[in-house]
């Protein structure tokens, strides 16, 4: 199965076998294109996707020594995400599918993340997923392929977005998540009192904008040189985020156990899963709750195409039919259509 991913600022292609062997994969980050703008510019992203994607596909095909005629299908992310990029991946995938009369699979990007643990190792349903990235912050109960219950989502920023914005106001450049984590490693997380948004509140939605504003006010109030306070503020922010994620996830575990009594696994996915503090705190939570903890390898935490090909293989195995060449692209595409929209949630929820 050929997988294509173009929903945000990574262009990716991968070939995955039905048994889960990733035969070849390429990811091209657009960081250099977007860095001068301090964030992802949709039109720049779309332009970069269309000039990179066919090269990446040619590379994975060459590495695998496979012809297009030997493929079992083509899978492309068709939502949710930035519409211009989604169109590039969808149209390219459909064109390849048409050329060799292959089944075309229109894949939900979030489903790719949610099914990634099963690409890595056997992970029977049900399991609870905390999906944390630049565009998403959701708690999802995966009941089976194609059946997901969204237990919580963010009512304002995605968690990775909060990392990037705080890093920006600390002058760490873009993308700021990894830089902020490095800075925080030298800091004292207890020095600054920062809010824990929604901590202890019912439900398992997230909110990060108040925390971000608190960091902004504290940063503006500092008079000493940056070395005297920045690392402590970064560490405080990271600790507050981790504590919030743990609190919300703990509540989701209770809810999920009600819905799926056999629940025995907690999974973290998405780019923020690369943060070592977040991972460690979630691993602690899983241990305390008696759950097995899975975190995909870092290359499959961020956006990638192997998870898109894998999601198509999972859907095929579960008996879903492939999609039409007229399948739409969708900027919004909730994984759980029955979930009520969270108040204030952005386009990605």
């Amino acid at each position, binding site marked *: 199965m050929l997988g294509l991913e173009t929903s945000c600022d990574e262009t990716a292609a991968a070939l995955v076998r039905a048994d889960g062997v990733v035969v070849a994969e390429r990811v091209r980050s657009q960081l250099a294109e977007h860095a*001068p*703008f*301090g*964030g992802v*510019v949709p*039109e*720049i992203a*779309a*332009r970069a996707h*269309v*000039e990179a*994607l*066919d*090269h990446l*596909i*040619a590379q994975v095909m060459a590495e695998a020594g496979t012809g*297009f005629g030997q493929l079992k299908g083509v899978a492309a992310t068709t939502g949710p995400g930035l519409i*211009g990029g*989604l*169109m*590039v991946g*969808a*149209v*390219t*995938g*459909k*064109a*390849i*599918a*048409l*050329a*060799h*009369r292959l089944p075309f699979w229109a894949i939900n990007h979030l489903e790719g993340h949610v099914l990634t643990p099963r690409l890595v190792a056997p992970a029977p349903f049900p399991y609870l997923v905390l999906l944390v990235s630049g565009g998403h912050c959701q708690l999802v109960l995966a009941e089976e392929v194609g059946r997901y219950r969204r237990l919580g989502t963010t009512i304002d920023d995605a968690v990775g977005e909060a990392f990037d*914005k705080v890093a*920006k*106001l600390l002058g760490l450049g*873009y993308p700021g998540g990894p830089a902020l984590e490095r800075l925080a490693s030298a800091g004292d997380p207890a020095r600054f009192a920062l809010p824990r948004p929604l901590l202890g509140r019912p439900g398992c939605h997230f909110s990060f904008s108040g925390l*971000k*504003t608190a960091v*902004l006010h504290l940063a503006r109030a500092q008079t000493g040189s940056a070395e005297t306070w920045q690392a402590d503020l970064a560490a405080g922010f990271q600790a507050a985020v981790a504590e919030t994620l743990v609190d919300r996830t703990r509540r989701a575990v209770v809810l999920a156990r009600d819905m799926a009594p056999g629940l025995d696994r907690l999974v973290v996915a998405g780019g923020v899963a690369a943060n070592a503090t977040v991972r460690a705190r979630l691993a602690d939570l899983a241990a305390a709750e008696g759950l097995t903890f899975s975190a995909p390898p870092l290359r499959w935490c961020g956006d990638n195409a192997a998870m898109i090909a894998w999601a198509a293989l999972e859907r095929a195995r579960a008996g879903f039919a492939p999609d*039409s*060449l*007229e*399948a*739409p*692209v969708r900027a919004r595409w909730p994984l759980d259509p029955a979930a009520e929209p969270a108040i204030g949630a952005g386009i990605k929820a």
Partner: protein
Amino acid sequence: MLAFDCAGDERSVALVEGERCVAEAAAAGAARHAEGLIALIDGALAEAGWTPASLDILAVGAGPGSFTGVRIAVAAGRGLALALDRPVLAVDGRDVLLARPAPGRTTVAAIDARRGGLYAAWSGAAWSGDEATYAATALPPGAVAARVPGPLAVRGSGAALLAAAAGPRAVVEPRHITAAGVAEVALGALGNGAVTQPGTSLVPRYLRAPDAVPASASVRAV
């Protein structure tokens, strides 16, 4: 040959054998180009009884036009070229509009570039066929009118804008960009010695930079 275009409001597909168009299909609605273009090609192939493998060359309308539409055509062209291992020929929409120029008038191709601008080109020795000499940017209609003297025949989605700027010396001709027109230009170019290119050489003719301001120059919103 497979030709297609979706730089404007319409997406269209044509299959051409020799100089004969054996199938043509079109649909309106720019919002659905990404959904509909490949299916439209599929339908035209079925109508002609052709297989994708029977195609020998792709002629792609590469713009200028809407960023999104142009990009969809290019993504389709690059995807098909890669999967079928076939070469491509990029066709400028203004060449399609300038084909078979009006007698006794300077023919002007005017594509609506939005925000009051035009992507323009006109017939005459200095312009014909050589895309390097096209205005590589959007121009105000008044600037186009000032540069092209005499009686005009204006064609394309921006024809009315240009005619308004040029006054009574301009007549609007009902010509728009179609895949059959893209194929006609491609065949003409091949007849004149144009060389086909690999799909990876196909790039959208945006002719305008993205609207984005570097972070240092913008108001920082947190």
